[in-house]
């Protein structure tokens, strides 16, 4: 099949999911980095995360939101995804990785497809299964996570042209880099908040002075 790779863009994520070991090499060889497809997959990830909170069957709900809030869901799916991309790129450019930012984003998104599919199955199944059959659901979600994890490792290996040990090390360091990025982001946000508050208080002070 390796010679018959002229397929439409949307088929690539499914192709790599079925070929976890050489699939991403094929992506690299064919330069099949489709940004639109990747962004659609990220959108699907977000939708699935929201649906998981809202549509999971009642016996399997773990979080009981009295007031639904989309921001934590957004940051735990889309934001984390882009932090991963940025963290991985900034680390692997230093570690002689060959991947560009756009390429890293595309392959990571491709690798998430099994997880998204397993989540969809999970949400559907959680509405027709009882708690006694909950182990099936655990199984489904574990399969999805494991498959995606294997794909992410394979994707990183192919896109940066690393050896296996180097890939693992790069992923571990990427996770650490993500933590640092999040910390810096929080610091920045609080700093900007203070700056904005400072400006606002000056503004109100001036208004009090001049609106006499």
């Amino acid at each position, binding site marked *: 099949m390796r010679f018959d790779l002229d397929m439409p863009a949307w088929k690539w994520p499914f192709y790599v999911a079925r070929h976890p070991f050489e699939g991403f090499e094929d992506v690299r060889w064919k330069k099949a980095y489709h940004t639109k497809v990747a962004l659609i997959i990220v959108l699907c990830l977000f939708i699935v995360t929201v649906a998981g909170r809202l549509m999971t069957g009642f*016996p399997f709900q773990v979080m009981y939101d009295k007031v639904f809030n989309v921001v934590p869901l957004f940051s735990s799916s889309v934001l984390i995804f882009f932090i991963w991309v940025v963290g991985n790129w900034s680390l692997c450019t230093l570690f002689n990785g060959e991947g560009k930012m756009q390429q890293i984003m595309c392959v990571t998104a491709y690798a998430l497809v099994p997880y998204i599919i397993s989540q969809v199955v999970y949400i559907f199944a959680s509405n027709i299964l*009882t708690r006694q059959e909950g182990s099936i659901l655990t199984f489904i979600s574990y399969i999805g996570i494991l498959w995606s994890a294997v794909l992410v490792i394979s994707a990183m290996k192919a896109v940066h042209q690393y050896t296996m040990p180097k890939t693992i090390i790069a992923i571990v360091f990427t996770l650490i880099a993500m933590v640092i990025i999040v910390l810096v982001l929080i610091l920045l946000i609080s700093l900007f908040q203070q700056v904005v508050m400072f400006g606002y208080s000056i503004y109100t002070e001036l208004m009090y002075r001049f609106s006499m």
Partner: protein
Amino acid sequence: MPLFKKFGAAAMAAVTAVSALASAVSADEPYNGYNYDWWNDAVPSQNGYVVDEVITGVDLGVGAFNELNDIFVDEVTGKIYLADTKNKRIVITDEKMESATVLDTFKYGEEFPESESLIKKTDLNDPSGVFVTHNNDKTLIYIADTMNERVIGCYEDGTIFREYTRPSGDLYEAEVSYRPLKVVVDNALNVYVVIKSITNGMVQFSTEGRFNGYYGSNRVETTAEVLQNAFYSLFMSREQMRKRVQAVAIEIANCDIDEEGFIYTVTSSKNAEKDVLKKLNPAGENIYLNMGFDNMLFGDMPLYYNGQNFASAIDDVDVDENGNVFLLDFTKRRIFQYSEELDLEFIFGGEGNQKGLFTSPTAIENLNHRVYVTDGRKNSITIFKLTEFGGMVQDAIELFNRGRYQDAKEPFEEILLRDSNYWFAYIGLGNAYYTMGENEMAMKYFYMHSKGGYNRAFKEYRMDMIRSYFNIFMIVVIVLIVIAVAISIVRRRIKKKKLKAASTGGDGNAV
């Protein structure tokens, strides 16, 4: 951040609950009923109990009380016994609470002559616990005579028949003080004494006054200190470990015994998470653990403001003849009533000086749906009576706990009409519909109220659905399979044709 948000939300809910009720209910009571919902937020509820009367020592004609520390209601005779600690006396009155007799001098009789006694005192010194039981038509009064370091067993006329003093064996450490605070007696007349700052549990005596050992000790809380000690014990010698502060279990604060002889104990530490309320079998094991109440929080949900802990500190426990459990919380001076299955029914009382509020509640008892609470600083007995709503809830829950779900349906519906926030009614109705076979209704009521109930109802509902739509379902499945097989056959043929065309076309790259 979410933690803070959650507490903030809880606080807001409590505030709105209070303000909403203040306008809605004609403010007869100084406190507002509330309950906890699925999210453990406080929601307003109707009062289950209202104040009936407040009685002081002057009303009883025995002079003002001074630190009332315990009350015992004798269900057989209807007599009420009060431990009037600083006046060094026991006051005996009855249900009408019009007159009282005082028991403060005792005598050694033939059964237990003075020569046998180790204490040899005929008066009390700060009694803080009293318990009464009956044996062969005789009323046996047990008094925890705290500062005299003994528990007296005596008859109504003050004749002492037994003293339970400091155990002399090796088990009871010599340097530990012996200050009995509370006492309960089981049907076999074994005496269980709660002793101040003893962390091993209650001290159990046989009828003759022999020390049988400790009973019902609490577990040690898993705090950082415990973990630290466990870590150090890996490499420290025994001598070194002895110098470290030992983590000990929290002492038992109070106890009660129910009709069936189960002993209930409480701890009054705000930080306690384990063993706040225990129901002990004769072997001293906590039955609630087997019932799945290991991680249950009793009293108010813990709240922290400015680093201060506002969790409940349960001071006293009382169990009525239906198995309802009353917990007295010293932090907020509230009373929590739980059903036999530990479902929170009512919260009432509060802190303050008005009728129905307390400054230092010490003990709780109940008789005939009336709840008696003593206050050690106001030195009065507050008597609560059940409201109409409260009675309705209690009857419904009693029916429910006996398994008569369908009979409980109407009362629960009435409860929901009066208070749509009353969460247990939803579970009751869910169970009613479930037993009636109306699974969809049951699911509707169980949703956001009981996962287990919803699961059961849903299982039946799914079974019904499969049974009624099995034919259509199977036809659809078979048709789908047929279509899938047909498509794959067609595709394979098309591929074969293509391959043939390619090979005959002589394109060498393919295959």
